[in-house]
């Protein structure tokens, strides 16, 4: 599970020796994120976002559990109970803003974490399982965030719930019964609000469980690195603690500065004004949009405005939206290039920076705008590129692209030479 040169946990005190004998939990932590986990020495700041995502989950659970002590999941009083938190609960405004902006922060770091994986080929063997579990976490996050946004029971909560559950209505024959079953009624109401609250409380703990699997699966091959060259010898790695605890500590500080700037000085910048209007089933907002982190997928959903070979436009949109995420699951088998890192893949790199990134940004921008021209046409082109990128371009270029020369080892990439490893003194057989 680890490299042979990994440091071993040695309890120093009688008490820690006693604990280690009965329940070696400190040993587990030491081997997971302490000195016992050798990590490539060349990780750049793109590798900070995993730890930051974990921090965000803890933040969301802590603020969320306290908010749940004051919130009432009943369609009659939910909106007022949120205002009660904002006005009457001690520091309630800070908790609620921390939670609402915490969701955005969570998605920011998770998107950066995912795109780090795209660029550096982190999904490739031997880390496919890490990737599959990661995409699963992302899907669970989307479900959790969607249901959380319904809880304040504002206009956008209600209409967002109506639109998103309405997607299931696009499924032929069984769609509408499924939608009614999901909502516990024909439209979002108390039944839907209650079950969303229950699931919104449950899912973060499911996410925490899958994160444990995600980290477990990661520790079997060990972390990837910006060169994509696997660890060859001891000089390629440093112990996680203190090296990466220190680096992550600094990263956490930078993250908190941005996060607190939003929390304290523009807490509503990422929300929608309509969600400060109580839910009203009789008044449809001029523009129904989800939170910003769903905009790219929402744009794909709305881009399909024409029926296609007897497939209704709405069904096309729904299938495409789900496919846009599900395609990530297949990425390890779509991209066959043996070179992991985009640094050494000239063609892949160009399609990443000049194709995928602008495409996702355009989709995001269009997803937050009115469904009208020119946003529709822009999002249609971007959506077409999105599918071509993952399902056509990446598989094809991975077959014939000629990668640039890779460094011999991580040590060579960092220090310029790796004499010991070249001479075979410091090399160890692959574990």
């Amino acid at each position, binding site marked *: 599970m680890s490299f042979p040169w990994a440091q071993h946990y040695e309890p120093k005190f009688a008490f820690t020796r006693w604990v280690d004998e009965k329940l070696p939990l400190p040993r587990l932590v030491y081997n997971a994120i302490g000195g016992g986990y050798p990590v490539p020495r060349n990780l750049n700041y793109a590798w900070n976002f995993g730890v930051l995502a974990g921090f965000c989950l803890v933040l969301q659970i802590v603020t969320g559990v306290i908010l749940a002590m004051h919130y009432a999941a009943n369609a009659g009083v939910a909106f007022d109970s949120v205002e009660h938190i904002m006005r009457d609960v001690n520091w309630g405004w800070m908790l609620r803003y921390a939670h609402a902006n915490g969701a955005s922060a969570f998605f920011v770091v998770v998107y950066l974490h995912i795109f780090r994986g795209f660029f550096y080929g982190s999904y490739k063997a031997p880390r496919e399982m890490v990737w599959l579990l990661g995409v699963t976490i992302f899907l669970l996050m989307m479900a959790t965030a969607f249901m959380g946004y319904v809880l304040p029971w504002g206009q956008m909560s209600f209409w967002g719930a109506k639109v998103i559950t309405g997607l299931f209505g696009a499924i032929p024959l069984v769609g509408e019964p499924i939608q009614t079953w999901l909502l516990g009624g024909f439209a979002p109401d108390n039944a839907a609000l209650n079950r969303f609250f229950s699931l919104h409380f449950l899912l973060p703990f499911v996410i925490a469980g899958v994160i444990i699997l995600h980290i477990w699966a990661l520790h079997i091959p060990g972390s990837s690195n910006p060169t994509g060259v696997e660890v060859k010898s001891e000089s390629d790695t440093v112990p996680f603690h203190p090296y990466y605890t220190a680096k992550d500590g600094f990263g956490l500080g930078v993250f908190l500065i941005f996060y*607190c700037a939003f929390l*304290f000085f523009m807490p509503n910048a990422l929300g929608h004004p309509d969600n400060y209007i109580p839910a009203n089933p009789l008044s449809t907002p001029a523009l129904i949009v989800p939170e910003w982190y769903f905009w790219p997928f929402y744009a794909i959903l709305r881009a399909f*405005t*024409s029926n296609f070979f007897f*497939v209704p436009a709405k069904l*096309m949109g729904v299938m495409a939206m789900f496919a846009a995420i599900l395609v990530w699951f297949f990425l390890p088998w779509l991209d066959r290039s043996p070179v992991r890192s985009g640094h050494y893949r000239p063609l892949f790199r160009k399609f990443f920076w000049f194709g995928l990134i602008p495409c996702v940004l355009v989709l995001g921008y269009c997803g937050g705008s009115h469904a009208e021209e020119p946003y529709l046409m822009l999002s249609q082109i971007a959506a077409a590129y999105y*599918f071509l990128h*993952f399902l056509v371009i990446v598989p094809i270029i991975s077959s014939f692209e000629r990668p640039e020369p890779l460094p011999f080892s991580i040590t060579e990439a960092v220090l310029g*030479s790796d004499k*010991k490893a070249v001479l075979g003194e410091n090399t160890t057989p692959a574990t």
Partner: protein
Amino acid sequence: MVRIIGFFVGLFFAVGVLWAFVNGAYTAATSPAESTAESVFHREPKDLALQSDGPFGTFNYQQVQRGYQVYKEVCKACHSLNHVAMRDLAELGYSEAEVKAEAASWTVPGVDPNTGEVTTRPGTPTDYFPKPFANDIAARAANSGAVPPDLSLIAKAREGGAPYIYSLLTGFQPVPAEVKKKFPEFQTPTGTYYNPYFANLNIKMPPPLTSDGQVTYKDGTASTVDQMAKDVAAFLVWTAEPTLAKRHQTGLPVIFFLIFATGLAFLAKKQIWAAARVRRD
């Protein structure tokens, strides 16, 4: 195999969405979207500078008090303030006795303690501001079919916030000649009023602030329509988030601390990593 299936799935969605693009482009080319009066004559809010703006913003309580007076004498005829309690007025700088007196000046629904009958009584600081209408049906019947929105959160519930409120209150005007010239069909139906800051230009609220001096300010400020609109906007920023000033006051030391702590973390990181930079071969 995954790649072959993926290839066709990718083509299916890409061609499907490009087909929609072609259809959309054809529609746009053959029947270009007509401009509407709303899209041409709707205006963005005017600039409004309030003391509560920006990261250092605090409330100008003098102004918020004036805005409260305008609410009490004008707005409250139609608009509720559901989330604000009389006790909250203490934050505006009123003394305890003043809050009690102010609360008593409002009539709130009550229950006769002897007979249990529904009655009214003078307010106390623990009461919330009374609603002007018994229910939405009554509100709609009295206002040409529109329910006047609750004002507690209005500054956060409208795009544009306080500047929007200020612009809307001062934006009432006769229908400009250009509108009639460009859109002869355009009408302002009976019971609605032309206001270029309102989304569809026709608002059902009659102009609430009609003349200078409509409210006599206790602090002697000249109550022009412009001034009253600004003061109400400032008041509604407060009602939307009474904790705004506290939020700003809390945030500044937090940010300064984080910058300091992050600096220390950076130095610690640098020192720890200095050892790893040494060539070991």
